[in-house]
């Protein structure tokens, strides 16, 4: 499956020539191309190329420069304060030396000496030059305002003075030895600092040397201070073994030994100010030899017996010195350290041979073989080119060129457990050990866990090409976390990495960093290289097929001017599955109970509330049947029996009297217009009311007309019914039938009856009729006839025979004298019938039933009212009693 590319997003396989994933459309070919040369990805175990970053300072973003400036100022302030207070403890809040190496790159000769080294040697620190804090100053961190100018002229500003001796280009300037000698001289000349712990100044530089401490990282300051105080224990009795220059002991160690020898005799040095393990060492040495000889440089006094206070690396070094000689240190030689007891007794070394790192085991071999001339140790010689590996180089420096150093077991990864983070980050950058050593060294039998961590780190890096085990990569993708990146920037000074840069052309040939655009893509700073992805095996295969040749030039930000430094997908692919977050609401039981209560409240609000029925207003079926039975029983009984119990009405109301007068005033054979405008349901009442009136007319010429469709047949019924039963004969009846148009029809008929009805030919006006009789059960019908005929009828009388229900509405027309008479209901017919000579008619048949029905109604209404009154009083009483 090497011909396919797996999408880093969806994981689907795609063809190698595809640029985007065909499933998720994610980019398969990164925008950045295959990195080559200096831009090539870092292989596992490969140490990034150290670059001079001083020229990049001007192009740093303003915020970074401000941050560094503030950090520098705070560091100065802290150092000044600490110097005054002479703090002894290691200050964990060390000022960050983000780009501490810049100062070393740009410093002059005087400032090249680190403070901690000056403290070690006891030399009086030179007053720091006042730094102009003008806005034009563009120095960063510890650099001065003219650092970059000096950097242009100075070909070697990046190498710290104490490591300049490592530079192969300047073999003559073994400044490390020089300043050790200077420190020795200064120590001898006076101005000892017994009150100040040797290692105190590491993180808080004294006031005076603060000016020079800018080149020195704090941790080194602290270590230097500690070493300066405890050097009497560390380097005692080393003159025997490392005093000769022919040995591998470097000069600076010898200087330190000499210095320590003097300081040991100085009773003013407080033992309590030194670190514990140094104190222990000093105590051990002091117990054996109060006038312990000053140990030469390169000697490492380690107790032969494991001491809890002594660092492992010191003990290991003690063993390491003895191991090649095959001597086992004595178990009781606790204070031997690197003294004669430590190195002279083979049994002590044999006992600790297992704890010795392999690379440290090379020390005695180098010493014995005397293979590397000069003072440089053999393990450092690798950094120096062959041409420059002169006699000035210490043998231990020349030893770094031994190829066997690169074959150190890669399993030293385990040794990183004791290495602080900043050393872990710094270890792979130490290219001092990058070059394989020229001298083969035997493979170590065991790992040394007792050696100092930082030495283990250096050692582990020197052996990246272990045959059996693969060295852990210096920077793996996992190590590129923010935490590690911070450690890289915070704990790894550039000057330390630059110290391993043996190529003088790197710094000397760099163009001035005046313009960021002039920076070539290949000149990546070391810290940028550290951020680059590690070219692992799998990623290398995939990137070889997926990486494109995109060399995007960064134009903004901290990476401005750099090209192809941001790899695409492979370096930034998610390394782990994103954490799944549950969307389920996390509610406690109390919250759930509250939610349930709220739901119940809402449900109760939305639930319809039944309205209480008013049962008192409902019709009682029993009462209804009782009323029906009572009315029917009374009426049927009366009608069936044909009783005439109730007398006919005697009095004549005015409206009936008016109708009576009209009927009596109509001449014989006069034309009378009769309008039948009632419903068939009222036919019994209307016929009973109208029949007596028609009985009073004397052979009239009746003309029937109706404004509703049923009226014509009702007229026929009236003609064939009441009129036929009448004793009077000689009626001439003309039924005009239905008069359409409602009020308009009435008005038209009133204006010209003959035109509307052809039967009335010759009658052109309503006034040609002798009387107008309106038989209606509706007040509206009576009102229409009254209104529409008011201006055409003239003086002809108009009598309205209405139903009892319409009489109250028609009565005002009689009161206003718009109509001549009003006969309403059975009562009006009965009055008319009484006025007709007492001839019993239909009204008499109905009168008893009508009277009983009316009486029954009055009784029932009155009884019902009283019953309701009683119920009301009872309820009120009960309510009053309830309230009491």
């Amino acid at each position, binding site marked *: 499956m090497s011909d396919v590319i797996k999408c880093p997003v969806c994981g689907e396989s795609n063809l190698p020539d595809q640029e985007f994933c065909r499933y998720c459309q994610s980019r398969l070919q990164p925008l950045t191309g295959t990195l080559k040369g200096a831009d090539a990805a870092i292989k596992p175990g490969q140490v990034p190329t150290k670059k001079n970053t001083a020229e990049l300072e001007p192009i740093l973003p303003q915020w970074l420069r401000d941050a560094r400036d503030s950090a520098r100022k705070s560091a100065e302030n802290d150092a000044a304060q600490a110097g005054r207070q002479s703090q002894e403890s290691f200050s964990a809040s060390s000022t960050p030396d983000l780009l501490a190496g810049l100062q070393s790159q740009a410093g002059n000769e005087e400032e090249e000496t680190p403070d901690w080294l000056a403290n070690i040697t006891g030399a009086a620190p030179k007053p720091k030059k006042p730094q102009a804090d003008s806005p034009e100053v563009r120095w960063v961190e510890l650099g001065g305002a003219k650092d970059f100018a000096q950097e242009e002229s100075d070909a070697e500003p990046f190498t710290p003075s104490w490591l300049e001796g490592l530079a192969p280009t300047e073999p003559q300037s073994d400044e490390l030895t020089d300043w050790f000698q200077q420190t020795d001289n200064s120590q001898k000349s006076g101005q000892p600092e017994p009150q100040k712990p040797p290692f105190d100044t590491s993180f808080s530089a004294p006031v005076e040397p603060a000016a020079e401490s800018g080149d020195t990282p704090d941790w080194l300051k602290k270590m230097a201070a500690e070493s300066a105080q405890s050097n009497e224990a560390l380097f005692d009795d080393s003159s025997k073994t490392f005093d000769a220059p022919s040995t591998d002991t470097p000069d600076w160690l010898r200087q330190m030994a000499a210095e320590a020898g003097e300081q040991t005799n100085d009773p003013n040095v407080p033992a309590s100010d030194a670190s514990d393990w140094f104190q222990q060492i000093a105590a051990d040495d002091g117990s054996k030899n109060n006038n312990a000889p000053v140990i030469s440089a390169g000697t490492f006094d380690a107790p032969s017996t494991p001491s809890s206070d002594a660092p492992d690396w010191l003990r290991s070094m003690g063993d390491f010195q003895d191991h090649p000689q095959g001597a086992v240190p004595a178990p009781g030689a606790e204070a031997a350290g690197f003294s004669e007891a430590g190195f002279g007794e083979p049994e002590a070394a044999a006992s600790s041979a297992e704890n010795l790192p392999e690379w440290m085991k090379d020390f005695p071999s180098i010493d014995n073989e005397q293979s590397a001339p000069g003072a440089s140790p053999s393990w450092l010689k690798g950094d120096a080119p062959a041409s420059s590996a002169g006699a000035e180089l210490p043998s231990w420096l020349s030893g770094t060129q031994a190829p066997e150093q690169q074959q150190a077991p890669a399993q030293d990864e385990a040794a990183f457990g004791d290495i602080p983070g900043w050393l872990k980050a710094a270890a792979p950058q130490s290219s001092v050990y990058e070059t394989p050593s020229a001298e083969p060294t035997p493979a170590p039998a065991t790992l040394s866990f007792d050696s100092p961590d930082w030495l283990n780190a250096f050692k582990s890096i020197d052996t990246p090409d272990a045959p059996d085990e693969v060295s852990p990569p210096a920077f793996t993708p996992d190590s590129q976390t923010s935490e590690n990146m911070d450690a890289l920037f915070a704990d790894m000074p550039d000057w330390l990495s630059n110290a391993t840069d043996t190529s003088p052309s790197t710094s000397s040939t760099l163009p001035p960093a005046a313009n960021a655009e002039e920076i070539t893509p290949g000149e990546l700073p070391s810290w940028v290289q550290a951020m680059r992805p590690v070219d692992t095996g799998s990623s290398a295969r995939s990137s070889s097929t997926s990486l494109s040749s995109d060399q995007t030039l960064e134009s903004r930000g901290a990476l401005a001017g750099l090209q192809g430094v941001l790899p695409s997908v492979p370096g930034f692919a998610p390394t782990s599955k994103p954490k799944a977050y549950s969307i389920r609401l996390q509610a406690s039981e109390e919250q759930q109970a509250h939610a349930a209560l709220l739901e119940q409240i809402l449900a109760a609000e939305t639930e319809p509330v039944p309205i209480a029925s008013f049962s008192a207003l409902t019709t009682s079926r029993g009462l*209804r*049947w009782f009323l*029906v039975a009572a*009315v*029917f029983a009374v*009426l*049927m009984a009366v*009608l*069936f029996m044909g009783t005439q119990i109730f007398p006919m009405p005697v009095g004549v109301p*005015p409206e009936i009297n008016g109708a009576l007068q009209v009927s009596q005033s109509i001449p014989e054979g006069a034309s009378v217009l009769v309008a039948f405008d009632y419903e068939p*349901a*009222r*036919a*019994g*009442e209307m016929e*009973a009311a109208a029949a007596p009136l028609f009985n009073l007319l004397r052979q009239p010429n009746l003309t029937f007309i109706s404004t509703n*469709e*049923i009226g*014509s*047949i009702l007229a026929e019924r009236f003609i064939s019914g009441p009129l036929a039963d009448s004793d009077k004969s000689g009626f001439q009846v003309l039924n005009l*039938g*239905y008069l*359409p148009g*409602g*009020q*308009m029809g009435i*008005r038209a008929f009133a204006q010209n009856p003959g035109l509307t009805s*052809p039967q009335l030919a010759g009658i052109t006006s309503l006034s040609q009729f002798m009387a107008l009789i309106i038989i209606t*059960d509706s007040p509206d019908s009576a*009102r*229409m006839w*009254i*209104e*529409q005929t*008011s*201006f055409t009828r003239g003086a002809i009388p108009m009598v309205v025979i209405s*139903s*009892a*229900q*319409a*009489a*109250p*509405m028609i009565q*005002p*027309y009689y*009161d*206003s*004298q*718009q109509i001549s008479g009003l006969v*309403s*209901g*059975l*009562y009006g017919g009965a009055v008319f019938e009484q006025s007709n000579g007492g001839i019993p008619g239909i009204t008499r*048949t*109905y009168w008893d*039933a*009508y009277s009983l*029905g*009316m009486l029954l*109604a009055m009784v029932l209404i009155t009884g019902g009212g009283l019953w309701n009154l009683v119920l009301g009083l009872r309820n009120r009483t009960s309510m009053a009693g309830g309230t009491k």
Partner: protein
Amino acid sequence: MVFSPDLIAGVLSFLFTLLIFSYLLGDNPLFRIAVYIFVGVSSGYIAAVVFWQVILPRLFTPLTNALLSGSMAEKVFMLVPLLGTVLILMKVSPRLAGMGRIAMAFLVGVGAAVTIAGALTGTLIPQVLGTINAFDMIAATSRNIQSFEAIFSGAFILAGTIFTLIYFHFGARPKADGSMQRFGLIEMAAWVGRVFIGITLGAVFAGVYAAALTALIERISSLINFIGNFF
């Protein structure tokens, strides 16, 4: 046995009366059958009446006569009702309903004018004059009505009219507690007006009951008479 029309009419009248009375038991099919028959017969009868008494003698016959023997003016004049009828029939179709608006506008306009004019001249003005004339002693004397009686009657009618009108005056002011209440005097007059309205409605109810009772008596009497014919 000879089934005379009177007998058939009597039997049908008896049956339908019983069917209508069955409503005392509630809504039932017998009652519905009687109602449907009455509605159907009435509709048929009305249609026949309208055709034979309206359309034929008032539209077709004059139009035919005008077309056959009428002058051009008579023909055109007789076409106007026909055109109005056709336009009103257009309202059957929703698409052509707009064409019937002219005829309907004519009918509504003429009907409104006739109604308003009749109401003013036949009811409103005469009723106002009648209320005023209630205090006319001369008119009362001519009608043989005592002056005291005439004044009392006129005052009663006037008071009833005024108080009834005041009752329908619903103007009110907000009280301090936010409730609305009419002015005290108006409230009292409205209460009196409510009494007059009650009396009027009582009289109307009595008239309705009297009319219904008379109709019931007539129906029971007809049933008794129908049954009595067989005995």
